[in-house]
């Protein structure tokens, strides 16, 4: 790699050729403020706060748009730089409402932080501020289905304009009018309609663009904990951070307060889609399963695990026994499993041992994987393509030997299962679905089969009270992806870990442990005490694959977001993730594949020829 060496504030710095002075300063830990610069989008040079003095250049330069050159001598601390920068801040704040106490960004706002550090103590602005509020006019306007725009707060850095143009490939946002009347707007006020709209809140360096989902819900100091995890709502596997609001256990409302993307250049870059960002309410929603239930006549009654387990065991034994007498064959196993590809690799691994223990080596034939696919409406040239497959672990299931069809973009084949059930050959179906409602696709036929008696026994283990669960004989309360340490293999074949941010609600349990308990009650020797035990066993059985080091994967723990500028600010998070991994408070947390060489992180879609 070609490098250049320059001096910033007397400190010699060597960076790759082609980096800008601002990037070099950030890498060296020299504090230079910036607004219009964002590493994920193109350089604009419109905010002017990153000015530095470069020897032999006649005027101050914007460091974000100046390339590093050998022997360059840069100063960010000389009096004229300090003065010029303070002058720019004075201009930026000339029309800014300073409504920080009621602004959601307050506390994690680069404008706030940098103004305190580099700006002047007060303003000399004598004229009234330009405001958009007035007779029949609101500064706060509707900005599409997911966003709100406060035009008073905007400093016109145009990050959102460039994000929509370059990443989303649909330039829906522009700057209308001119001069002091300029404002961020969409064509005919029709708002931003994009699958990536939530990222606009992250790129906005002030509180101008906010998501409706997070608006007025919490403040940065209310979210003391953030957990680095992985999104499981499609097969892309974006690296994310789950934010937890501090509140007493008895207080109403959810703890999970927002999801933000976490920088991973190989998977999602700096971004995530709106599905992953906003579709987390089901985890702590009304329809969440909190305790196991058994059917008594027409109703499902809450019960205790220790009461449920023997009854479940007896019913399953009866189901297996009854069809053994009715000349069952290997092709028509009496108990079949319908598993959502939302199941983690640990769960699939335990399930594999369970079915092979019960039915021998042909056991996996009794398991059918299900997931849904949908076309996501995105512009053709988008840089962030959301996967078609709405499940995180189709590849993990394939690697474990489950029949999931060819390719990651495939669709599940439930026809064999359906005909076996509808012809009355199946005595019981065990459903495992830790995903949100609808992740199995259409289940009305299964509900109908249970209700008309074709299927004598239906067991549902899942996270949400779906229609299918309400038709079941046994409902086992499992955990959602933010409630367990679990591995998922994304569409690149990359093994990633999701981590436990919150505990499963009520009496709900980790899904692998429910399967282990079931296996033990049926007489199998499954001796796993914790998720790491499962991962160790998985690693031992799959040498020479990325799973061989599954037990070494760093499943992250909550990060204390003590220093908001460093750790909690979603728009600054990228910097700390990829530059200062050795510094607290992000130590080790973004390194999901610690101990595994980058090459080994990619596994071929097929493990054996």
């Amino acid at each position: 790699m070609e490098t250049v060496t320059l001096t910033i504030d007397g400190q010699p710095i060597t960076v790759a050729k082609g980096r800008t002075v601002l990037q070099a300063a950030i890498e060296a830990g020299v504090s230079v403020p910036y607004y219009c610069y964002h590493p994920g989008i193109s350089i604009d040079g419109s905010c002017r706060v990153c000015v530095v003095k470069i020897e032999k250049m006649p005027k101050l330069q914007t460091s974000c748009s100046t390339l590093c050159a050998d022997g360059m001598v840069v100063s960010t601390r000389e009096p004229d730089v300090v003065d010029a920068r303070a002058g720019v801040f004075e201009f930026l704040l000339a029309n800014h409402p300073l409504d920080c106490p009621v602004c959601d960004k307050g506390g994690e706002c680069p404008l706030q932080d940098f103004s305190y550090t580099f700006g002047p103590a007060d303003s000399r602005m004598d004229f009234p501020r330009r405001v958009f509020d007035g007779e029949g006019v609101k500064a706060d306007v509707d900005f599409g289905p997911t966003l709100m725009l406060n035009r008073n707060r905007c400093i016109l850095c145009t990050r959102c304009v460039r994000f929509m143009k370059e990443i989303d490939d649909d330039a829906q946002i522009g700057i209308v009018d001119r001069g002091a009347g300029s404002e961020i707007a969409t064509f005919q006020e029709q708002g931003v309609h994009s699958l990536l709209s939530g990222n606009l809140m992250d790129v906005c360096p002030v509180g101008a663009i906010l998501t409706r989902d997070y608006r007025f819900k919490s403040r940065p100091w209310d979210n003391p904990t953030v957990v680095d995890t992985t999104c499981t709502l499609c097969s892309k596997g974006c690296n994310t951070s789950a934010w937890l609001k501090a509140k007493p256990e008895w207080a109403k409302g959810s703890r999970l307060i927002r999801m933000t993307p976490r920088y991973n250049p190989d998977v999602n870059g700096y971004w995530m889609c709106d599905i992953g960002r906003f579709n987390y309410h089901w985890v702590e929603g009304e329809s969440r399963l909190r305790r196991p239930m058994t059917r008594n006549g027409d109703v499902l009654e809450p019960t205790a695990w220790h009461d449920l387990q023997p009854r479940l065991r007896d019913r399953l034994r009866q189901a297996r026994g009854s069809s053994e007498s009715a000349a069952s064959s290997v092709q028509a196993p009496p108990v079949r499993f319908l598993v959502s590809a939302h199941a983690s690799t640990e769960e699939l691994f335990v399930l594999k041992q369970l079915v092979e223990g019960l039915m021998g080596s042909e056991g996996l034939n009794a398991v059918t994987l299900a997931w849904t696919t949908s076309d996501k409406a995105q512009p053709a040239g988008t840089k962030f393509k959301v996967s078609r497959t709405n499940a995180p672990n189709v590849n993990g299931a394939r690697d474990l030997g489950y029949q999931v069809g060819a390719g990651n973009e495939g669709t599940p084949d439930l026809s064999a299962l359906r005909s076996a059930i509808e012809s009355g050959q199946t005595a019981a179906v065990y459903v495992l679905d830790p995903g949100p409602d609808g992740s199995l696709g259409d289940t009305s036929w299964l509900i109908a089969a249970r209700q008309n008696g074709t299927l004598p026994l239906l067991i549902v283990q899942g996270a949400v009270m779906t229609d299918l669960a309400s038709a079941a004989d046994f409902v086992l309360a499992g955990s959602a992806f933010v409630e367990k340490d679990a591995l998922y293999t994304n569409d690149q074949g990359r093994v990633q870990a999701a981590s436990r941010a919150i505990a499963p609600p009520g009496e709900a349990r980790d899904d692998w442990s429910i399967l282990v308990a079931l296996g033990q009650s049926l007489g199998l020797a499954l001796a796993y005490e914790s998720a790491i035990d499962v991962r160790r066993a998985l690693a031992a059985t799959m040498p020479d694959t990325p799973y061989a080091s599954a037990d070494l994967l760093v499943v992250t723990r909550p990060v204390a977001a003590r220093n908001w500028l460093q750790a909690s600010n979603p728009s600054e998070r990228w910097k700390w993730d990829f530059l200062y991994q050795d510094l607290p408070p992000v130590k080790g947390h973004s390194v999901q594949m610690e101990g595994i060489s980058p090459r080994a992180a990619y596994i071929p879609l097929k493990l054996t020829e």
Partner: protein
Amino acid sequence: MDYAPAKFHKSARELAEPGGAFAYTPEHQAKFDANVKCYPPDQRRSAILFALYLAQRQQGYVTAAAMRHVAEQIGCTPAEVEDVVSYYTMFFTKPVGTYVLNVCRTLSCALRGAERVTAALSAELGITPGETDPTGTFTLIEVECLGACDRAPVVMVNDDWHECLAPEDVRRLVEDLRTRGPAALTGCHLHKEKAAEATS
């Protein structure tokens, strides 16, 4: 999340009129096609200004439908076209009169009595700057420097300068425009020089 715009705040920004279906006339389409060839294929957006000029020529002002049509022609988004329309003061997003009277109010013209010209036009037409008269014939606008300081005060009528316009000549200009139509637009020295060339 369901989107119910009526539920939420709306900006009171003055939007362009939605307008009816818009498409270039064949003549304008040909002009556009010829102009867009002046730019490299990856920089078609450079032709937005000319494309909008054609749209305004055709319709008198630029509607939202026209912006969409321009965006289609250029291959960009309507938001990018709206950026340009809203930036330039010479694009109109509301109907204007047949004759747009742009009175220069910058220094040279102001020193030579542009304010009195505006006042005289206002009185003659019964409208204030920024308005269109009820018959839809005249629109009066105050603008910044038109680049004809040596012939101040200047009024630009549509695309033509009307130079050295004394406040007392205003009535004659307006009457002229009313009776003779575009033929009255001869106040510009360029017209006079052209006419002189033709006769000599």
